[in-house]
């Protein structure tokens, strides 16, 4: 069907006998002066023939072939995709072939909305026959770009609509092994532990997930994702979060080590203090030592205020945010 692929010399449609009965229709938006760019000429001609078959509502094999040509030249044109689906329905086209076609297009256009939408339409029709293919396909795309938003959305849809949860937590683990800063993989991990029918829910998973995120934090304390993940594990149960000694001890550990980025540890400590956490003397001493003015100053009895002052200094971009946090402390008193 797609015989033109890779051919150096493309035969214009106007010179092909199988298209001689079609009169091309140019885009109706004013004069289109011819510009001597070969690619552009192919593009304009293909679209002119596409308009002709579209207006004639010709749902034929050659029209299906033509939509493939048009998509190859510009995968963003939603009207072409729309017409392709109508043709596929009319011809009862082979949907497994169609998955292959979208995969080829996706290799060079993985951030195009139309491709993903079309792919879902095909997979929906195939049902659970498509499950493993779709999981493999998204995996391939994520190998090229581990944060591709469309691939993640598609994958979440596949899991929920068609199943295939068995290895998903393992897959998240693998991606985080490759890049512990991958926020998309952290998000997927949270999605799996809260949504997978094979797991027993957030609370039952909490202990092991806390250990996992604490480990990630210790390795890279500047990584925003595991800090937010750790907090997310206690959604709706702040009391348990404040009481869990693992949370305050990871803050202490990060703040005690020299050369660590301290912003997220300090902000977590600040949140803990705002929710009634009682700091140990050791933690107080470690925070005092981080003060810019040095440890000779009189320590402020309000540790949260000290934390805000340090954050203003180490995170100047967000100084106003930390000032606001400090002013909120005053109003709490």
């Amino acid at each position, binding site marked *: 069907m797609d015989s033109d692929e890779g051919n150096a010399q493309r035969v214009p449609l106007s010179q092909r006998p199988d298209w001689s009965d079609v009169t091309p229709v140019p885009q109706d938006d004013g004069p289109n002066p011819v510009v001597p760019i070969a690619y552009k000429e192919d593009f304009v001609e293909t679209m002119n023939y596409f308009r002709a078959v579209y207006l004639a509502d010709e749902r034929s094999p050659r029209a299906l072939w033509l939509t493939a040509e048009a998509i190859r030249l510009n995968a963003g*044109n*939603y009207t072409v995709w729309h017409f392709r689906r109508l043709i596929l329905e009319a011809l009862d086209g082979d949907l497994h072939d169609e998955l292959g076609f979208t995969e080829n297009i996706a290799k060079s256009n993985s951030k195009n909305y139309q491709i993903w939408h079309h792919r879902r339409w095909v997979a929906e029709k195939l049902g659970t026959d498509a499950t493993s293919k779709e999981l493999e396909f998204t995996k391939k795309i994520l190998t090229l770009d581990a944060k591709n938003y469309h691939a993640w959305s598609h994958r979440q849809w596949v899991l929920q609509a068609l199943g295939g949860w068995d290895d998903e937590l393992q897959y998240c683990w693998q991606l985080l092994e490759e890049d512990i800063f991958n926020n998309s993989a952290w998000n997927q991990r949270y999605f799996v532990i809260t949504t997978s029918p094979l797991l027993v829910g957030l609370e039952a998973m909490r202990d092991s997930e806390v250990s996992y995120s604490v480990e990630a934090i210790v390795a890279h304390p500047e990584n925003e994702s595991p800090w937010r993940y750790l907090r997310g594990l206690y959604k709706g149960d702040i009391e348990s979060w404040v009481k869990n000694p693992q949370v305050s001890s990871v803050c202490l550990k990060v703040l005690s080590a020299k050369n660590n980025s301290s912003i997220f540890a300090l902000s977590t400590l600040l949140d803990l203090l705002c929710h009634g956490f009682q700091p140990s003397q050791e933690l107080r001493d470690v925070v005092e030592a981080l003060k810019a003015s040095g440890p000779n100053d009189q320590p402020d009895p309000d540790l949260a205020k000290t934390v805000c002052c340090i954050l203003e200094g180490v995170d100047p971009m*967000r100084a*106003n945010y930390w000032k606001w946090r400090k002013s909120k402390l005053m109003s709490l008193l």
Partner: protein
Amino acid sequence: MGELAAKKHVQYILSVEKRKDDLVSVVMEHLRMNGAYWGLTTLDLLGKLDNVDVDKVVSWVMECQHESGGFGGNIGHDPHILYTLSAVQILALFDKLNVLDVDKVTNYIAGLQNEDGSFSGDMWGEVDTRFSYISLCCLSILRRLNKINAEKAVNYIVSCKNLDGGFGSTPGGESHAGQIFCCVGALALTGSLHHIDKDLLGWWLCERQVKSGGLNGRPEKLPDVCYSWWVLSSLIMIDRVHWINKEKLVQYILDCQDTENGGISDRPDDAVDVYHTYFGVAGLSLLEYPGLKAIDPAYALPVDVVNRIFFGK
């Protein structure tokens, strides 16, 4: 500090509008309606909308309307909600909403709401919180929010809220600044901002500012001028914009200008396009850069246009 090359940007936008023969404009053909909205809104913010032939634009927009009531990205293209909002916004810019058959357009939009409150983009049923925002924005401009189930629409958006306070495209989807704009905007338009944890989301949003002063859309991603709009407008709607460093962001946007030929790019020294030119100028407008009209963060239209719609001023 450099300055906004306003005159050059006006020339750039006008030249793009006239250029119909090069490859970029041919490949953009199917989303010309979006391009027109970006370009025309930029001209209005720069105070130069009078350089445009209103009747020509309005008649072209109306030729893109489909019998279903929705608009296509160009003449003869299928309708989609993405182009329908741009069409309505363009007509609003020119104070020409009266040429619309309001019921026809709003029936098309209302017909795209699903049982769970979400919205599809067109007859093929792709669901995304982007489409929730677009629908609510369109209906609000045309004063027909009563045509849909707004409570369900809000509930669907709330179901897309994440542990970091942000929102994704569907429930469980990763927080992304573009989707956050859509969700916060939709909640603002329906008077439902109380569903947002403003302090948590505000902190996540201001964490998007990186060392160069620019904003990214997700953790560990590169900054891009378009997030000057998505992040900033969200911060303004939840009243937390003072948490970022505005001076550094202004500088970043100015650094992305092509000061010779006009236009703004995603990052310094990249190629310019209309999309980033719009988001750069709109971002500067939100930052109250001198000489620019103010833009409304929820409607993405100049404030005087929004006032004209709702207060007849």
